[in-house]
């Protein structure tokens, strides 16, 4: 389980992602042609979807307002997780499949490298290359996923959101070959982050509308996770 609650992180990053932004390090395919087999280490994955109101009335009402907001958000997320579970939604599988397909499409051989990855951070150490026989490890952290609305008015609908960071590390010497962050539908443009515009098909005027159209709500999460995963793959082109 990721120790920090995804909702707290996603909400915090909405406001201050610029401060959290890690350096972007581009992949250079021409100088990394020895990288043919990529090992995807088990991604760190937010344990449940977030449903975030980026601005609310409660924020104007001090500590009491914050407590009310936190309770309401927790209730929304509990309800939404039940909805997602009832539809057999498996975000890890959706993301993993899209990422694997994206890498294979570019000619890489992909292997899964099971590791314990229980923090919303990159791994400190990677398995010895002798054990895995791969050229580079792809370390992915899905910091949060779910839905976000910029505000409470009808002109600020809920749309899917995903925050991912990714790092490619050469297996033989642990040098960093690529590092970047991807934010599908950020609220407030973060620095040093790839931003993906949300698909307008998945727009819900309020939380009741989101809960009232479960098929489309789940599909919106799938689309946003797939698009984010494919973008990670594209970075290794």
């Amino acid at each position, binding site marked *: 389980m990721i120790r920090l609650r995804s909702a707290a992180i996603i909400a915090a990053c*909405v*406001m201050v992602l610029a401060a959290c932004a*890690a*350096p*972007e*390090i*581009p992949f*250079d395919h*021409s*100088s990394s042609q020895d990288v043919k087999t990529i090992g995807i280490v088990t991604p760190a994955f937010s344990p449940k979807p977030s449903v975030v109101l*980026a*601005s*609310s*009335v409660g*924020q*104007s009402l001090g500590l009491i307002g914050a407590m009310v907001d936190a309770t309401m958000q927790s209730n929304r997320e509990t309800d939404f997780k039940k909805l997602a579970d009832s539809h057999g939604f498996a975000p890890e599988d959706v993301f993993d499949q899209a990422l694997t397909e994206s890498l294979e499409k570019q000619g890489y051989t992909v292997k899964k490298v099971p590791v314990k990855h229980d923090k919303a951070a990159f791994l400190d150490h990677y398995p010895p290359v002798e054990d895995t026989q791969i050229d580079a490890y792809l370390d992915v952290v899905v910091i949060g996923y779910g839905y*976000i*609305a*910029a*505000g*409470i*008015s009808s*002109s*600020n*609908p809920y*749309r899917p959101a995903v925050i991912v960071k990714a*790092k490619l590390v050469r297996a033989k010497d642990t040098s*960093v070959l690529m*590092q970047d962050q991807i934010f599908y*539908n*950020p*609220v*407030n*443009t973060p620095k*040093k*982050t*790839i*931003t*993906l*515009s*949300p698909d*307008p098909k998945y727009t819900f005027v309020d939380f009741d509308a989101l809960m009232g159209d479960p098929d489309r709500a789940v599909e919106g999460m799938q689309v946003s996770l797939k698009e984010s995963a494919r*973008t990670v793959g*594209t970075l290794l*082109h």
Partner: protein
Amino acid sequence: MALAASACGNDRGPPPITNIAALTCSPRPALAEAKPVPLDSDKAVTVTLDGNASCLEQPGGLRSLYGAFKLPDGSSQPVLVSVTSTPLGAGLFSPHVLMLDERENVVREIARDAFMFHGNKLYVGIRLHPEERYLIVASDPQSVGSQISRITESTSTAGGSAIGGGVIVFYTIHSGSDRESNFTYSHNGTVTVSAEPMPKAN
């Protein structure tokens, strides 16, 4: 005279240029006036490419407007070169990049699809190779003219005070906004190039 496409503007600015058939173009980029890029991210070099910009005609007759930059050399450490295209009015310069050596030969091309959005800007980071001395940012004729729509969300905070019954009350109001921006990929626009030592990963 370059022809401009009609488009719904997001902000004031020149219209997007999508047709440069009437321009006089050269088969090789003119590097004599390439703008030097210091090895300092705080000293980025920005150019605005308009209908008077230099024009490059590549094999096959594809035409581009371009800006030329002289890259820092002699660095003993890896260098990150950043290229950013910023919206100009309703247009967004659709870039691709050519890297040239000191003999002015193209040694590498950074394709259009390597650029990713950072907000409404297009960005690519490039690891500089030792032999690369010049960088050409040229419009990508195959994507020019196509449209892109992007949704961006933001929040804001406003504060104030009110007086009533001899009491001053301070307050803040948090609100959100959604905006849809429509751009036409164009030959003209604003391009920024910077260079810096490759940052350390964390």
